[in-house]
């Protein structure tokens, strides 16, 4: 029993990290119907910016909460700038062209970002010493202690707070209304006075900011960053977004949780080596039964 609880804690933490990244995919898809394949690499940029700031901040001897808050601020600010620039350079010139064009330029952007970081930061994994050590023992039974570390608590709290914040932003603010208007019909929205270019730009900035938060959490949790980390994390998060119903914010987090839990529980009770097979088999089954994903809406095709 304690073992199951521990594995659930592991799975939820992993799943929420996937969910944080998946939020960025789902927001961009929701608004312009495009898969931003460079999003995994924006997440990687976020992790590197956080790493550079944490490494240089440690020389000033700041206390931990201040250092983390500063690193978070810098990472979000700089990564958002990347998000804005990527949209400006790679996607806006292609808006209105055929559907596959921005997809291809997203893949190109992904490769460009990877190579940029590989050349500027080196090809080896970069390490960050443990910053948030320790935690609490949740349960203890039969000689097995369920450990809940501070960093796991931080990941859970931050993801849920970010999800709540973004749901509020999309459903309650004027920016959210503009985003939903662009999602339904960009041409009509612009006729009614919504600045679609600005709305789309802001969506990319917000998505990149989310990726930076995920990058910082990932870095604090695992303690490594490398130029290639965005690829696997991006694929998993994209899968999570599809599983949850792409375009839906709670769906992204739910999909991430589901993938994290399947991977962890499969590793816990069956084979560690075949956890991806389990996760993706369930994805295939679920999409056969419910093609729009868990919380996705099926768009009625208007004729």
């Amino acid at each position, binding site marked *: 029993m304690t073992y199951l609880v*521990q594995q659930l804690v592991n*799975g939820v933490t992993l799943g929420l990290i996937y969910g944080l990244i998946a939020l960025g995919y789902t927001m961009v898809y929701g608004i312009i119907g495009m898969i931003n394949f460079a999003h995994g690499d924006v997440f990687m940029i976020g992790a590197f910016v956080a790493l550079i700031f944490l490494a240089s901040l440690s020389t000033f001897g700041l206390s931990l909460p201040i250092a983390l808050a500063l690193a978070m601020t810098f990472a979000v600010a700089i990564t958002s700038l990347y998000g804005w620039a990527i949209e400006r350079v790679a996607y806006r010139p292609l808006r209105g062209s055929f559907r596959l064009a921005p997809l291809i330029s997203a893949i190109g952007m992904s490769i460009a970002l990877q190579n940029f970081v590989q050349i500027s930061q080196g090809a*080896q994994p970069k390490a960050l010493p443990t910053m948030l050590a320790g935690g609490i023992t949740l349960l203890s039974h039969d000689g097995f*202690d369920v450990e809940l570390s501070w960093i796991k608590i931080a990941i859970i709290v931050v993801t849920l707070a970010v999800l709540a914040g973004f749901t509020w932003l999309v459903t309650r603010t004027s920016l959210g209304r503009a985003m939903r208007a662009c999602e339904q019909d960009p041409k009509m929205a612009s006729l009614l006075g919504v600045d679609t270019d600005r709305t789309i730009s802001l969506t990319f900035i917000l998505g990149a900011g989310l990726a930076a938060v995920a990058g910082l959490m990932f870095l604090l949790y695992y303690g*490594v960053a490398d130029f*290639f980390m965005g690829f696997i994390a991006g694929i998993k998060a994209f899968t999570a977004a599809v599983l949850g119903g792409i375009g839906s914010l709670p769906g992204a987090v739910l999909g991430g949780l589901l993938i994290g839990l399947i991977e962890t529980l499969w590793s*816990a009770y069956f084979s*560690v*080596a075949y956890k*991806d097979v389990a996760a993706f088999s369930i994805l295939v089954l679920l999409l056969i039964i419910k093609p729009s994903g868990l919380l996705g809406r099926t768009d009625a095709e208007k004729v």
Partner: protein
Amino acid sequence: MRILRSVFGAGVALLTCALMTPTRAADIKIAVAGPMTGSTAAIGAQMKAGVTAAVDALNAAGTLGAKVELVVADDVCDPKQAVAVANRLAADAVSLVVGHYCSSSSIPASNVYAEAGVLQITPGSTNPQLTERGLKNVFRVCGRDDQQGIIAADHILEHHKGKTIAVLDDRSTAGKGIADVVAARLSARGVKDLQRGSYVAGERDYTALVSRLKRDGSQIVYIGGYYTEVALIVRQAAEANAKFTVMSNDPLMTKEFWNLASDAAQGTLFTFMPDPTKNAAAADVVAQLTARNVTPDGFTLYAYAAVQMWANAVKRAGSFETAKVAAALRAAPVDTVIGSLQFDAKGDNTAPGFLVYRWHNKVAEPVP
């Protein structure tokens, strides 16, 4: 006008110089191939540093009467890349390839080299299959996993008798190979209830695996794998408060392991060849490398020795031809920076030797 003319004249002179240089002496190309990028890059850097220093020494001394030019090739520890790299080096007509590192790269690449008649000396691929297939052009300076695994298993049996043991691998050629050797040896010497498992390399999250080992009450976990994943497992085990000791194989001989695992690395055991930096024969080379800000750790001197072996054999054979050099390599022992080195008929080091090391306060120290 006069100035212009003299500038033009200087240009012509420079151009002739530039055109003349390659024709002066036939350059000999040799290559170092290994993981220069990716999650095993720290070891590629060791190999590159060793080979570069050896080539510089050869050129400075003029031992071979020809300038040796070094080509660096990156296989990212990936079999497909390794074959591509091997084909390119074969087309480049290199005389020697020092490499690769990952056995899963060295073995497929060795087929390409055998076909093209290129000499291959690996400083670090330990999987037995590399030299077991009767190829005449393949040599290895390091030891083999059927020796390394026995040393590891015997250490566990001697120092950790009666503890609960798990053996894991990353499903790579080298990792699975050595984990199988360790598990077989442990079973043969009477260990029952051995947990055997594997994990996926390249992941970041091993918390599920660590919790599983904790539940099973594992006290000693042997891992056949590479340093990045082992570091993550060790780090996540410390975080989960799982108190087991990890023992692993030769890739752990790099500072990067300590950097990645930070304090959780304390007490991690691994096997490696004897540390050659303390050899009297290596003193000059160690001083040279240190002057270049290179720490001569891990495979650095083994890569250096590979070039020394080759240069010595070329001199004795009086030719760069692969068949003649290979015969000379098998013929006699050579004094290298890692001590007297001799190859047997298969191309293996006749007296490799493995020791057990332990990470302790940022230093890998031999366990008595």
